[in-house]
């Protein structure tokens, strides 16, 4: 099958790779770029485990072909912490609130929550539940994820008011 060379910007770095046109973005990230933090939970766009930020917006990387991402900026779970490895405030809140158990949905939850907080810095519980309702988690019952997002928003407010 015909192969196409594509250039992606993944976690702030330009990468070139060669894909067949039918390869999904998530397979490209996982199998070619070996960024296995992004997970595949259903291959049909429902569970949200494969969510990544695409030019800042959360998308399902199982529903997009890798060739469609040519020239776009992609951020995966591997790119959420600072360069020096310091966790983002959202990651740290997930940790503090025990917002993950098996951790399989976590990358998608982080992506969905981080997009929510960009759009709405002070979300209520219903807003958070709505924002993550497209991401399935079988372990947590969602409550500690909601609490983690609330804690992040609270900490950002504190930082803003102190700064």
């Amino acid at each position, binding site marked *: 099958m015909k192969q196409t060379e594509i250039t992606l910007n993944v976690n702030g770095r330009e990468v070139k790779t060669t894909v067949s046109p039918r390869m999904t973005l998530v397979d490209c990230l*996982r199998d070619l770029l070996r960024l296995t933090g992004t997970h595949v939970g259903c291959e049909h766009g429902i569970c949200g485990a494969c969510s990544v930020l695409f030019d800042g917006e959360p998308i399902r990387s199982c529903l997009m072909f890798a060739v469609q991402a040519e020239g776009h900026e992609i951020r995966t779970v591997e790119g959420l912490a600072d360069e020096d490895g310091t*966790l983002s405030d959202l990651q740290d809140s997930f940790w503090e609130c025990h917002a993950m158990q098996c951790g399989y949905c976590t990358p998608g939850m982080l992506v969905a929550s981080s997009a929510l907080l960009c759009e709405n810095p002070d979300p209520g519980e219903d807003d958070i539940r709505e924002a993550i*309702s497209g991401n399935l988690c079988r372990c947590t019952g969602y409550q500690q994820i909601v609490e983690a997002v609330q804690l992040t928003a609270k900490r950002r407010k504190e930082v803003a008011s102190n700064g």
Partner: protein
Amino acid sequence: MMKFEKIGQPVRRLEDGRLLTGRGRFSDDWSLKNQAYMAVVRSPHAHARIRSVDTSDAENLPGVMAIFTGQDCIADELSPIPHSPEPSTKYDMKLHGPGGSDVFIGNHMLLPADKARYVGEALAVVVAETLAQAQDGADAVFIDFDPLPSVTDTKLSAVVGAPVIWDEVPDNIPVETFFGDKEQTDAAFDAAAHVVEMEFHIDRVTGVPMEPRAALGDYDTDTGRYTIYAGSGGSVRQKREMAEVLGEEADRVRVISKDVGGNFGTRNRLYVEFPLVGWASKKVGRPVKFTCQRTESFLTDYQGRDLVTKVSLALNGEGRFLAMRADNLSNVGSRMVSLSPLSKGSGLITGSYDIPTAHLRSRAVFSNTAPTNAYRSSGRPEVTFAIERLVETAARDLGIDPIEIRRQNLIPPEKMPYPNAVGMTYDSGEYEKNMAMAMELADWGGFSGRRSEAEARGKLLGRGFANYVESSIGTPREQAEIHVNADGHIDLVIGTQPSGQGHETSFAQVVAEWLGVPVQCISVIVGDTDVVKVGGGSHSGRSMRMAGTVIVKAADELIDKAKKLAAHVLEAAETDIEFKDGQFGIGGTDRQIDLFELAGVFEKHENLPEELGGGLSVIEDNVMETPVFPNGCHICEIEIDPQTGAFEIARYTTVDDVGRAINPLIVDGQTHGGIVQGAGEALGELCAMDTETGQPLAGSFMDYHMPRADEYPSFSTALNEVPSPTNPLGVKAGGEGGTTPALAVLVNGFVDALRPYGVRDIKMPVTPRKIWELIHANS
């Protein structure tokens, strides 16, 4: 109560750093150079004889390397999976075949050559250069079927004349066992003032771990060893069973199972694809990878629940329970993989209540469906549903307050340990206190005001209530190995396998507590059978209790060993050495040495007496048969819009007795997740089947209703920690209590809301459409 510093603290989990940054090691994350891919040819029929398999077209497709069928398994003398379906520890409810016969198990071959017994059953595999080529190859395998009549429904499978799944079991009933006392029960029913009878089908659902199962097999021709990278509920069992299937000694198989994306029972038993990738790797001389697609998971994951239960309760004129009858029929699917749900449920039919006598018939039935297995709280949500719906209905039918009827029939603490009427002995619990705590937390008294307020908005508000007690038994043996390294860290090697329960943290808390060191210096090593050689896996709420007990035993032994060395180093008598906060010292002096310094002495010292050799390490084994009985009380409030049938869970409150909670943060998470997993079955989850053709109708997330974040409120939870007297830490279990009563409490809530419309029962899953129909059927 013992006083602890690290046990009981909400310590941040040690495993989370990697999970938050995408550095987990889930099954499909493993890849090996030059790996080939395996795709599975699955049965499109619920029941069909296999006339022949034609692989010639597929063999000629690009990239296809090999195709294996049931005949190849026979030719290579592969053995069936050695399932051990019967729970067999000392205190399990023992099941047998009709008339006391042995239970028929049947041959679970990796690829059957005789017939397909359910839609999705693996019949052949194709190995190819790429996954797409393997899938194309699988599509091109032609199987000539002779379709047979099929049956999937639980009751219909047990009817005389139903299609026969196994020729050896012409009535499809491989298990029939009676428990309790029939004569006493009959006499009590004859003398009863009231008898309330109900029948329930706690229908088929599936575990849906978010990580689909996957396996990578790598056969090494030089060593003759298979390495299988495959996440499961317990790698030690997987290794043993795979070795047996492949006809190899156990040490020829190594299983690596690191991060596991959820289990819930679904991964406890061996799947055919795991030994298949090993076998295929040997045949093609390359690593072979298989990753399940979500639809394959829906069709072929071992599924859960599916119990038909007919229950009746005899009461006297004052509402005192006199006796209970139950007739339980568990659908085990097409193959006998596990009888855990039937057995566990059999021991708990009388629930939290002091019912003097009972009689139970427990049967299993084969059908043309995926095999069933333990699913979160195996067997207990089903019987809890039956008893709590029955008690609730009895109270309503007899005009007694449902709380009062429960209170007057609860097992009181002074009757503990309490032998119930079918032969289980509950260890401890304060059931009435659970109820009182839950009612206070739920603002029981404020309900009528909330109901009026809802009514003013045109809504119905219902309230559900359920008590529960469940058993935690599980494989009795566990092993712990503790090794203290001079560089300041401690390895704990333990056999039980986590899949999100936080073992790396809670087990570390126990070690840290005992050895007086920080939690963070402990590494819990799991999931590589070359390192972890013994262990029972995570099931039946056993891990914290079994591991905690053996860790304490091992840590005590380690301290004894270290004391001997400390005495040697400090030139003192062993009896003068005191151990405190990680330091070994001589009482009344400042002479002391810490644990890690001692480890250094072990590592360097060449002239130690013989009994002090071997490093600062211990291996300890423990066998603990005695079960424990977590228990509690849940309350919910559900608001319904009678115009549309749409509903919302307004409140959900729990009080759980998990025994001692090692890490309350983790226990809370287990409770929340457990509630939603139980509620899922009440509110939407169903492995729907077309009963005519046996075709599953729920094959994706588009048609299987998974619980979502916006369907649930935040829960109000509390613990009533009554330490179990059966183990040194007082642990019961915290993983299943959320699930066990959730089905009952929610359906009780729906029925309460809809009572004005004459509703006495609703079959799960309760959907807006069902509610709307019930409202309109009676208007």
